[in-house]
């Protein structure tokens, strides 16, 4: 094939790509076009900020679940929430999990929903069901230990700062206690603990408090298992039977224990992997000797297998059923249960048993969740933003094209055509991938326009140089591109690196921006190198 033929073949390919993208882009494709249905079906995916809706972010508590099973548990929670939301009838809910450091979040996006209150309530009411077995008490991981030590160090600092304030001659101890104390029992009364005698308080505290003079504040922090105390003795007296009693106030800054709290039921019971995730159905039944109301559970296949394994290794031992973090029933296993059915028999009345079975039937979570962020965008704001962003995009493109033509004449026209194709390709990618368009994603697109222009400008400047050097014909264009290439490569590579980092580390908004900017840079490489060059070769005289 001759060089000219090659150029024309490439030109036809470019035209075909452009037509394809154009068909994807326009909202309604006339029916005489082949595959018009498929083209019309491609929709732009608008983010919540553009179409209105609600975003809820839930923090999950995976502290009781072994590391390697956390991901599965959170995915399970995601599925349960999705089932619930679908049940609620929201169109196209988007629910995904996000991991940051060692914490998992579940992001629930509900487009166009009006009754957010009900949605939150419904998700919040989802019960958390877990089956646990006995095991060695859990130990703190070294990371957890380090975190707690750090926390305690900071607590000590804080306590020392407060102590300094409390020791000033004009200090108002009660006001300080009201402001800083972490003892919820005495905080509101300005730290006042009332009258107490010996043996009423923890030993370290008692020793320090009784050693004080009336009206005196402890010079140093008093450390107990609760944390750091600053103590002020208010008054002292002797009771009728001659025992010493004092009245004291304190400011408490809590510390965290470096040991596992054994009184916490969570710590004695081990995660088994059998949770609400594997629950198939639940219903109220009557059972036992006295025909008490109970809740019968039926597991799915995975749950049936897990349950039989758990009962097999725990024959003669108790297994705990945790509901919302509390053990509601701790039956002792008599034999291996292979039928995939279990019964919760608590002290239920009929109403409670019925309610619980209904709640469980609608889906039970494998992990505890907590709403940490909520965002509602009214639909009117969304519409306004769509129109504005669209106008901004078009104007941005036009401004760039006019500039290019004014600055570079014929080359500017070529660049403008390349830019138009660039915009069409990007739009098509957004629809096909799909990319969820948010305000920041559109901003990313517009910035990438700048980069696309830059590639063209670099090339044209180089072509001018080559012409000045006395070259002509296709050599000018080829050499111009070759010389511009290293700059284009390096500058786009660094931008792509930044985009990759934004996409990987960013959340939501930042991520969308990185994605459209990165896609824009890649497309601009294609349009600047391939499209512009091809057009120049074919039409440059």
């Amino acid at each position, binding site marked *: 094939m001759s060089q000219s033929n090659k150029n024309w073949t490439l030109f036809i390919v470019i035209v075909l790509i452009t037509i394809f993208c154009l068909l994807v882009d326009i909202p309604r494709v006339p029916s005489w076009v082949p595959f018009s249905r498929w083209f019309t079906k491609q929709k732009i995916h608008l983010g919540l900020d553009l179409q209105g809706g609600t975003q809820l972010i839930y923090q999950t508590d995976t502290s009781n679940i072994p590391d390697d099973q956390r991901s599965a548990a959170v995915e399970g929670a995601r599925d349960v929430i999705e089932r619930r939301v679908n049940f609620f009838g929201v169109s196209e809910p988007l629910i995904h999990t996000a991991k940051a450091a060692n914490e998992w979040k579940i992001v629930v996006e509900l487009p166009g929903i009006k009754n957010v209150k009900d949605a939150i309530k419904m998700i919040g009411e989802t019960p958390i069901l877990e089956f646990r077995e006995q095991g060695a008490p859990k130990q703190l991981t070294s990371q957890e230990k380090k975190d707690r030590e750090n926390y305690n160090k900071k607590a000590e600092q804080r306590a020392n700062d407060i102590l300094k304030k409390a020791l000033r001659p004009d200090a108002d101890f009660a006001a300080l206690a009201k402001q800083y104390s972490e003892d919820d029992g005495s905080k509101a009364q300005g730290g006042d603990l009332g009258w107490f005698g010996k043996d009423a308080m923890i030993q370290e505290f008692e020793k320090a408090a009784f050693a004080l003079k009336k009206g005196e504040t402890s010079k140093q922090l008093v450390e107990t298992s609760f944390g750091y105390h600053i103590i002020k003795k208010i008054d002292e007296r002797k009771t009728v039977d001659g025992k010493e009693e004092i009245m004291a106030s304190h400011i408490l800054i809590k510390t965290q224990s470096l040991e596992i709290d054994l009184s916490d039921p969570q710590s004695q019971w081990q995660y088994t992997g059998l949770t609400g995730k594997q629950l198939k159905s639940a219903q109220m039944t009557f059972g036992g000797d006295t025909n008490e109301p109970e809740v019968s559970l039926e597991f799915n296949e995975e749950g049936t297998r897990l349950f039989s394994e758990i009962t097999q290794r725990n024959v003669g031992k108790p297994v705990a059923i945790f509901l919302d973090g509390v053990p509601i029933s701790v039956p002792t296993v008599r034999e291996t249960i292979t039928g995939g059915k279990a019964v919760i028999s608590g002290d239920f009345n009929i109403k409670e048993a019925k309610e619980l079975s209904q709640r469980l039937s609608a889906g039970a979570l494998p992990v505890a969740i907590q709403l940490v962020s909520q965002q509602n965008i*009214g639909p009117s704001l969304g519409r306004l933003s769509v129109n504005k962003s669209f106008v901004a995009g078009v104007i941005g493109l036009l401004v760039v094209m006019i500039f290019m033509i004014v600055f570079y004449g014929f080359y500017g026209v070529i660049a403008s055509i390349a830019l138009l194709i660039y915009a069409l390709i990007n739009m098509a990618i957004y629809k096909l991938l799909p990319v969820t368009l948010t305000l920041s994603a559109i*901003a990313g697109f517009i910035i990438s326009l700048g980069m696309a222009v830059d590639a063209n400008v670099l090339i044209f400047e180089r072509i001018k140089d080559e012409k000045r050097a006395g070259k002509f014909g296709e050599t000018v264009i080829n050499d111009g591109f070759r010389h511009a290439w290293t700059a284009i490569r390096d500058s786009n590579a660094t931008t792509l690196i930044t985009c990759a980092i934004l996409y990987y580390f960013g959340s939501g908004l930042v991520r969308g921006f990185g994605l459209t900017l990165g896609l824009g840079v890649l497309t601009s490489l294609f349009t600047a190198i391939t499209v512009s060059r091809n057009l120049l070769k074919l039409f440059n005289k």
Partner: protein
Amino acid sequence: MFYKIIQKRKIFLTISGVIILISLVAWIIWGLKLGIDFTGGTIMEIRYPSVKIDNNQLIIDQLNDLKLENLTVQLAGYDGAIMRFKDINEETHQKILTALNKIGAVEEISFQSMGPMIGRELTNKARWSVILATLCILFYVAWSFRKLSKVIKQGESWRYGFGAILALAHDIIVMIGFYALMGHFRHVEFNSLAITAILTVLGYSVNDTIVIYDRIRENILTRGGRNLEEVINLSINETITRSFGTTPITIFAILAVALFGGASTRDFAFAMAIGVTTGAWSSVSIAASFLLFNRKGLK
């Protein structure tokens, strides 16, 4: 015709120094006005289609009973208001709406409430992405300019990597200074959009630096680096028309966003325009000058 540009680098460095100083002082004195995506909290925007709101006390009075911590109410137009306060739960949110409905039928335009946890995460992420992006750029530039290490002397390409990073640090400090100034005088918040702006400028600044460096690389490889100052000046002159072409075009595209976007997008676009300008400036004043730092020419 060649302009003597790099020869005047002392003037450029002084100007950059003054701008950096102003930015740092603004940052230290006023700090950044952190948005709720960093600190946690609530932003609620409302509108009264049928009532004229000309005094924010009207709204504050209604919300008094709810004891919202750090409540501020800012009027927006004649019929709307933006309220900020501590992060709340859904129950309180509903109570607020009920209270606001006593003034007249209220329309909630947007509501955003997040706990401080999310903010900590964002701060961490932002910090790491800036550090990581900077390191990646340093290594990429050093790798991409490795030929210079062979031709000139061992480790030469690292000078280019660090030059690009210094220009970048310059631009980031200017951006932060800009947000500190805008935060103080115009109540512009430093939020995740601001982080996005800074990260983009980070990419753009390197873009600009690399175009000049690329020319310098080419000219050193073809002409040798005996008189480095002259080679650098030649390279800046050769790329200057491109800079004068691209930078204004990009800024115009960004200003189009500014003119047609909403208030938050406008601040974002304005910051980007500043960033793109300082990015182009620092490529010459910092990045190119740094190549001559502590030496006159190469043997």
